């Protein structure tokens, strides 16, 4: 009996449940897209700040919301178990990108709160690759 | 009162009732009919107004709920529906006009309650907007 159980478990690991994998890919793609939206919003805000188009209060709200959204997406995505080992690799990929995004957003938010708007453009530049990678990922897995 | 025949549903029920100052009293939520013993057709004796009158007419769960709510506000289990005797009706046009003022008619339990417990306690309740 025990051997049968082990066999069943092994078999279930080998058969790649492609539908669940596909679902997970979509989830990953959607999460990447959502975080990309937050980062893009923040970058546009930074651009507005660099052009002296806006002041502290608006930027603060913008960045706080962007960060909050990205963190929410991250926690939702992390709460889903990857269904297979291939999916595991995907999870690591997305996680890395999202973490880079959320920490960048957090830094921007802190800067604006302190009124150090001058450092924003530099931060934004550093976040740009993350944004591009998120968007590429999202396009791939949609 | 001269016996003019009007379609009850069309010309009387659910009409707005206005008092002698032109203020809204309520709607004709229901009517009280008198059924003569000699078999001649029943005629309207009074207008009934208020949730206690509307509830039973709506019927069903909704109607019961309406009555329940109003009784709860009244803190009185068996409040009677507001009644306006037919003899007070002076005009039957697009609205029903009656001879007395709202205060005199006294069919307004909920309005009086709202006024007494809530509205009058807020400053400026006597000033009309414009």
């Amino acid at each position, binding site marked *: 009996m025990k051997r049968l159980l082990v066999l069943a478990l092994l078999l279930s690991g080998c058969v790649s449940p492609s539908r669940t994998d596909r679902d997970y890919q979509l989830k990953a793609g959607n999460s990447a*897209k*959502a975080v*990309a*939206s937050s980062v*893009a*919003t923040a970058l*546009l*805000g930074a*651009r*507005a700040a660099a*052009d*002296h*188009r*806006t*002041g*502290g*209060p*608006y930027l*603060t*709200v*913008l960045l706080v*919301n962007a960060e909050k*959204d990205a963190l929410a997406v991250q926690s939702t995505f992390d709460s889903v178990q990857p269904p297979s080992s291939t999916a595991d690799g995907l999870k690591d990929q997305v996680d890395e990108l999202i973490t880079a995004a959320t920490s960048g957003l957090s830094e921007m938010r802190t800067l604006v709160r302190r009124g150090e708007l001058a450092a924003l453009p530099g931060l934004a530049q550093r976040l740009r690759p993350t944004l591009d990678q998120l*968007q590429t990922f*999202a396009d791939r897995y*949609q | 009162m001269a016996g003019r025949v009007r379609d009850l*549903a069309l010309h009387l029920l*659910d*009409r*707005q*009732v206005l008092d002698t100052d032109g*203020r*809204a*009293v*309520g*709607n004709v*939520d229901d009517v009280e009919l008198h059924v003569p013993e000699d078999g001649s057709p029943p005629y309207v004796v009074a207008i009934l*107004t208020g949730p206690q009158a*509307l509830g039973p*007419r*709506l019927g069903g769960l*909704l109607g019961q709920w309406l009555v329940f709510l109003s009784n709860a506000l009244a803190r009185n289990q068996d409040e009677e529906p507001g009644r306006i005797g037919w003899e007070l009706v002076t005009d039957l046009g*697009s609205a029903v006009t009656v001879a007395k003022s*709202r205060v005199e008619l006294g069919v307004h339990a*909920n*309005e*009086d309650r*709202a*006024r007494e417990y*809530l*509205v*009058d306690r*807020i400053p*400026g*309740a*006597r*000033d*009309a*907007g*414009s």
Partner: protein
Amino acid sequence: MKSLLKIFLGILTAIGGFVDIGDLVANAVIGARFGLALAWVVVLGVIGICLYADMSGRVAAVSGRGTFDLVRERLGPRMGLANLLASTFVTFLTLAAEIGGVALALELATSVSYLLFVPLVAFGVWIVVWRMPFERMEQAFGILGLCLLAFAVALWQLGPDWSQLLHQAVHPSVPDGEGHPTYVFYAISLFGAAMTPYEVFFFSSGAVEEGWSRKDLRTERLNVYIGFPLGGLLSLAIAGCAAVVLLPQGISVDHLDQVALPVVLSLGKVGFAFLIVGFVAATFGASLETALSTGYSIAQYLGWQWGKRTAPREAARFHAVVLVAIILGAMLILTTLDPVKVTEYSLVFSAVALPLTYFPILVVANDRDYMGESVNGRVVNALGTFYLVLLTVVAIVAVPLMIATKAGQ
């Protein structure tokens, strides 16, 4: 000359008062996602609201009675109650969304959390209803709402490819990567935003309060047929801004700050200032209208004395209902439910309530007992019936679509 000024003011009020939080959110969300591919829905919605607002205004002017009064008389208490419950629920939800909208706008200006503004806003809405002159307040908020023209100016400044935008609008097609159900779902939300029920109640009750008669009908028509379409154009400008700035960046709109982003980028601090004034005016004005509409609809159904012109103690239940509605609306927002989400839901439910709201108006507007010679003409009836069929279809598919697309995910 004086009447010309009055007409002008009326039109301005109609334009500025057309846009509320529902229009702001819907147009921005959709512009950022579909570009102008749903512009036709705005056009359709504007025609519909013009048609029915004019009808209900005419009914009010000719019969001297408000919509709900007549609904119950003409269709019976049961139908009237169904109408009332549907409309009141939706209007209440809209009221909550508008109060949230004012708070969000104030947050944008000050970075103080919107939750802290909610009680202030609620109190402000109530005090205006309690004490301030009706016509004056409508005009003030309507005209200040014109500051939202910043969207139109911003769109111009952004220098978009107009031919491309026009192409999008005239060739409505589902963009790549979007499903048809999602497209239809958003179309329904946008439609609900353009034709929200409270606009009609407020319009007709306002007409009765101001004592409109037949001779005011021409002014009323001008307000409606010039003001509302221009308001619709403003809606399209909001969508256009989102389409030009947010869509290429893959930004999906979830917050009011994103709605403002295109204006900030192109018009800077000045544009932003106008925008905030416009946001606050539009949403505050709509808060007043929805709060009053809740009171109007219940009071008219039950035959209470209602209105802003009588002293509050003479219309105690009416004012009690308005007060309670405002408090409950504020409380809903204070549960920290995202006001933007509340707005989106209010739009879907608006769409569901539409046929129940508009059907009685069509019936009453055809009733010679009330309207005499001013009953609907054949064209109006044909159009009105077409819209009613459309509204019924929309109402039936709205909720299933919402569930199927997970509210447009």
